[in-house]
């Protein structure tokens, strides 16, 4: 019996439950739409997945240190407009422009990190304020208008539409970045620090972990990855748009919390399967030519249901922090 309990831990049960739900979703869509289960469509779904899941990847680190980031979608707008400005108005070549965009994300990530980590400002308000500031700055580049000059000729389109031996670039970004994030967060001593900070900050401090450093790193990762995502999105759309990144917020939170509901703590694999579930559903509804607001509904329902599922086995004493994070430091 003890052995039985060891195999069927909560984690395994919820993982099985998750794949059961995923299986039902896949089955329903492949019955409803014959085009769903084709290689072409799956590749398209993966490409779409990469756009929603990279922002979620950064957010995972912020949730792991026990904070919330409400600025990454605003900051991503700023970075994408920075890139568009360098490409469209200053006529730089793509790579330096992308680097300038990432620099924008880095700067705002540092500002967020210092505000929350060093100056101990309340995370939500501070990040919303900083995000609003960044979003306002994004309007300055072209008075809020689209930037589309030079997009077709400079080769920036390749950033999103290119492929390597048939694999689209965004899919490569997805797997490479997720692989490194997995190694860092789950396979190094450095990565354990994120969970330690999120679980018990005072204990972490007294075990010699640089708490501020981890919080700043988490916010930098979140903002830089969201910026990267939105730049790929901008390249795919062929114009820089000040509101382009705002759609990143909800799917990112949903993906992370689907992961939390499966693994009881924010993990890279959890975020990945969360993003996968959401984008496969969005892809399915697109094939059924459902209107765009159904996507929002799907994302919202997934988020709320994943909260409810993750709380079905509620334990005592989980008022303050996410229960999952507490688990993270006990194992």
């Amino acid at each position, binding site marked *: 019996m003890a052995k039985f309990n060891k195999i069927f831990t909560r984690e395994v049960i919820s993982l099985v439950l998750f794949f059961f739900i995923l299986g039902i979703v896949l089955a329903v869509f492949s019955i409803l739409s014959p085009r769903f289960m084709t290689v072409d469509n799956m590749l398209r779904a993966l490409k779409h997945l990469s756009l929603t899941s990279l922002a979620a990847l950064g957010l995972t680190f912020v949730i792991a240190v026990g904070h919330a980031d409400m600025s990454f979608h605003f900051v991503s707008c700023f970075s994408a407009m920075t890139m568009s400005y360098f490409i469209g108005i200053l006529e730089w070549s793509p790579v330096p422009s992308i680097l300038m965009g990432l620099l924008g994300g880095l700067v705002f990530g540092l500002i967020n990190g210092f505000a929350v980590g060093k100056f101990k400002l309340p995370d939500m308000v501070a990040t919303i304020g900083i995000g609003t500031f960044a979003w306002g700055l994004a309007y300055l580049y072209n008075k809020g208008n689209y930037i589309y000059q030079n997009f077709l000729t400079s080769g920036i389109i390749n950033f999103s539409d290119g492929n390597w031996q048939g694999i689209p670039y965004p899919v490569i970004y997805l797997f490479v970045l997720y692989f490194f994030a997995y190694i860092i967060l789950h396979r190094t001593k450095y990565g354990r620090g994120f969970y330690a900070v999120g679980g018990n900050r005072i204990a972490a401090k007294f075990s010699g972990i640089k708490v501020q450093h981890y919080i700043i790193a988490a916010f930098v990762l979140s903002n830089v990855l969201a910026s990267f995502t939105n730049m790929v999105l901008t390249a795919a759309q062929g114009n820089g748009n000040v509101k382009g990144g705002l759609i990143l917020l909800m799917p990112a939170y949903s993906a992370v919390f689907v992961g939390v509901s499966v693994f009881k703590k924010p993990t890279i694999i959890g975020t990945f399967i969360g993003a996968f579930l959401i984008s496969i559903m969005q892809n399915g509804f697109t094939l059924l030519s459902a209107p765009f*607001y159904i996507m929002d509904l799907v994302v919202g329902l997934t988020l709320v249901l994943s909260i409810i599922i993750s709380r079905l086995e509620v334990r005592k004493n989980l008022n303050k922090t996410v229960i999952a994070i507490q688990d993270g430091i006990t194992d």
Partner: protein
Amino acid sequence: MKRILSWIRKLFSPEYILLWMLLIMVAFFSIKSPTFRSTANLLEVLRSSGINAILVLGLTWIVASGEFDVAFPDIAALSSMVLVYLVTRGIAWGYSILIAILVCCLFGLLSGVLVNVFKFRALIATIGVSVLSKSTAYIIGRGSPIYLININKTVERIMFGRIANLIPILAVIVLILYLAANFLQNQTKLGQYLYALGENREASYEAGIPKKMIFYSFFVLSAALAAGGGVLLATSFSAGQPNFAGTLFIDGLTAVFLGALMIKPGKPNVIGTYFGAIFIMVLGNGLTLLNIPFYYGLIIKGFLMILGVTVVAFSGTEFFEKRRAKRAEEPAHQ
């Protein structure tokens, strides 16, 4: 004489910094723009700040009790859609408004359940609720706004009417609402409870504060007030909008956090929020009249929000405590 002096001294204390910022801004815009300083415009600013003020009244208390609600703009949108949908189907205005507010209360209740029963951080729960209410609003209109043809006379009068052709009715209603809320906040147990929850969650649980009841009522209240704001917005746009232009959220939050600078430094309170809402509207109106694009307003609001939260965070913590302690120590050393 002494009393007057102490009053004057009080006015210069940090508790009234927002009032001074507001006065300086009004003076600045008045010098720059003759249109701004006309009585008609100033009263119009007061009137239109009312909508924002109604939207964020519930949010003020939620933030003061240490939680968060990001759903209010989307709930307002949902309320406007439900209202206009029912009205265009020929249902009487009174019933339509009632149903719109009740539907929104259900969404508020959902936030309350997610926070109370499923113990999730209010931010995550309300993000979920806001997406749900936004998509419900879209579904009602099948993805587009619904236009209103006739507006009920009473609602129009509440929105645009003037007492004696001068004082906006909406401003009076909002003022009464805020004074009532201020009474609840300062003179009843509820007010004590909500600041106790914001101050020390654990201690207030131990003291037996009915926190579940409080959070349920706050989330439902916030949704109901947002719904009321949505009804006013629908009459003002003469359409139900599934997605009001993006700055509603930022304006509301800025009002609450600027308000936290006032009266009770560091804690959101209704009078502060009222002045915060007026502040935001003066800023928007002044920038428009000076022909400055609205995104400069966005930058200023973001900056003000950071400034507000910094002052709030430091007012309660080490920085001021240390200074206070130093001041207390100095004579002892001599």
